[in-house]
């Protein structure tokens, strides 16, 4: 009640700093949004797990009698030029489209934090070499490097996961290194060192938990980016190969039909990507608000 009155008093003076009420309302709104986004992630995962049960048709079964049909009650999102049901293909594709970004992000997070924390804690020439390698990798835009690497080692799912992970490692590595540099100068770190803890224990048991929260935010945001990279690789023919479905690959299959008016083939998989990336980003923003109060104002 009191906060509400305070809010009303300040509401009309624009120059006033953000009041507790306005800030609270804004955070509530954002958290409500992130809460919805978290529910949406759970829903996506459930859909992916139960995909074969939910899909109304066999996603790879051609049907000569139902070629290139517009969305209708029988085929809610229409059919493609082989008569395959679009909705079923999108549902089945959710498996690989969640798996690849998730596993590659997790892998990048693991490798990045392992090397980053040791490099940051140790410092010296090892750190210098690691950072120069990171600089070199970061000189390449992530997608372009992923494109070159996938072309080089081939596009199996394992390779795609590895490649997307490699392009992401530098981000976590840098961030964790910076956190470590700050954290190791703290008194508790000095204390842990003085009583003779081994290095691995100081780094991973004492310091690491304090460096971790910002990393989680970064990882959630990166998941969306990983999906975009993965879909783009499939679009240019480097990712998932037909007849297996993947959202980027589906857009690519529908691309040439866009100029003849069959809009549904590319539109719906694109919306699937858009919504999924949006959800990851909203959850990431929500986590940032919760875990890192310093970033709140942005």
């Amino acid at each position: 009640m009191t906060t509400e009155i305070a809010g009303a008093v300040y509401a009309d003076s624009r120059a006033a700093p953000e009041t507790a009420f306005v800030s609270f309302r804004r955070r509530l709104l954002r958290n409500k949004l992130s809460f919805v986004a978290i529910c949406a992630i759970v829903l996506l995962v459930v859909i992916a797990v139960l995909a074969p049960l939910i899909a109304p048709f066999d996603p790879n079964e051609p049907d000569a009698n139902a070629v290139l049909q517009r969305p209708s009650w029988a085929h809610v999102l229409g059919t493609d030029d082989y008569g395959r049901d679009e909705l079923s293909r999108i549902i089945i594709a959710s498996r690989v489209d969640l798996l690849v970004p998730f596993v590659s992000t997790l892998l990048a997070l693991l490798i990045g934090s392992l090397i980053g924390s040791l490099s940051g804690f140790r410092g010296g020439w090892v750190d210098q070499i690691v950072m120069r390698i990171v600089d070199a990798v970061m000189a390449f835009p992530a997608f372009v490097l992923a494109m070159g690497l996938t072309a080089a080692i081939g596009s199996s799912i394992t390779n795609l996961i590895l490649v997307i992970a490699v392009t992401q490692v530098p981000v976590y590595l840098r961030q964790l290194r910076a956190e470590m540099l700050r954290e190791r100068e703290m008194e508790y770190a000095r204390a842990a060192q003085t009583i003779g803890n081994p290095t691995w224990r100081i780094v991973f048991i004492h310091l690491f938990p304090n460096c971790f929260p910002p990393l989680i935010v970064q990882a959630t945001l990166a998941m969306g980016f990983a999906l975009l990279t993965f879909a783009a690789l499939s679009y240019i023919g480097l990712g998932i190969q037909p007849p297996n479905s993947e959202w980027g690959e589906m857009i690519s299959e529908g691309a040439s039909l866009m100029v003849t008016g069959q809009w549904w083939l590319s539109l719906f998989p694109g919306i699937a990507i858009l919504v999924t990336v949006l959800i990851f980003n909203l959850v990431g923003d929500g986590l940032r608000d919760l875990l890192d109060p310093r970033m709140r104002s942005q």
Partner: protein
Amino acid sequence: MSLLFFIVRRLALLVPTLVGVSVIGFLLTYLLPGNPALVKAGPMATPQYVAEMKHRMGLDQPLYVQYARYVTGLVHGDLGESSSTGRPVLTDFIQRLPATLELTVASLLLAVLLGVPMGVLSAVHRDTIIDHFGRVFSVAGVAMPSFWTGLILIYVFFYLLGIAPAPLGRLGPAISPPVPITGLYTVDSLISGNWHAFESSLAHLALPSLTLAISVMAPLARMVRAGMLEILETDYIKAAWAFGLPRRRVIYGDALRNLVVPVVTALGVVFGFLMAGNAVVESVFGWPGIGNYAVKALTLKDSGPIQSFVLFVALMCILVNLLVDLVYSVVDPRIRIG
């Protein structure tokens, strides 16, 4: 620290990065499928001939010798050969570079013209409907795959409305390219007064550049907004308010002038996205640039263009970041101390 010393130090820092990038580039050529000796010898060659070719091309040498040859070649502009066009990659590159340059510059211009005002307005009218709209746009903008945006634009403006030309290259089928001066069709046709070609090239440029611009506008607007908010919080702006200076003068005079640094930073970051987006967007619109060239090479298992494109993009990004830092040090002398 003097400006000269800053520049020299910045250039020296470039050396390890360039070495790293060339190592990665070399590893790519080493790993990419398509044995270059086999390609050069032709499909009918005997194993002996292939072995001889391998020896002549130095592919039987130890790795570090091969790396040294690779770097020497790069410095002399040797990017290898393209097995699909049968020409040196450099020749193909030079031919296609103007198209990529035209697209990149046009989309960068468009992104700046739309994204910077959006970020500024969002910051000035913070938490109003303008800001909310801006935020919704930037959240959605980063979530859209650029190839998909391009296809939707094609559907709406080419198929439905019929106001855009078919997404097949830089000019209409019956129009011959303008006299080459800069290689940018829009500029060349304007200089030579070729209105027909100008109209056609501008129409063909519109959708691909809009597609790329949309993909980078969102992060640009977001960074500009954050930068502007920070400026509005500074003491000198508060002092300007306290003096009772008119709103327009404070925001569009004093604050905007200091926005140069955040905008330049944002442009450096966004340029990388733009180069990455190029490959995909060029192939959506059949734009005959180097990105499309590399993507086409992927399906043909032609390794030369792929690795050259990857390397070229990295070098461009390094160059742009260097420029950004140099602009900084001129605009904001405080940075030289750091």
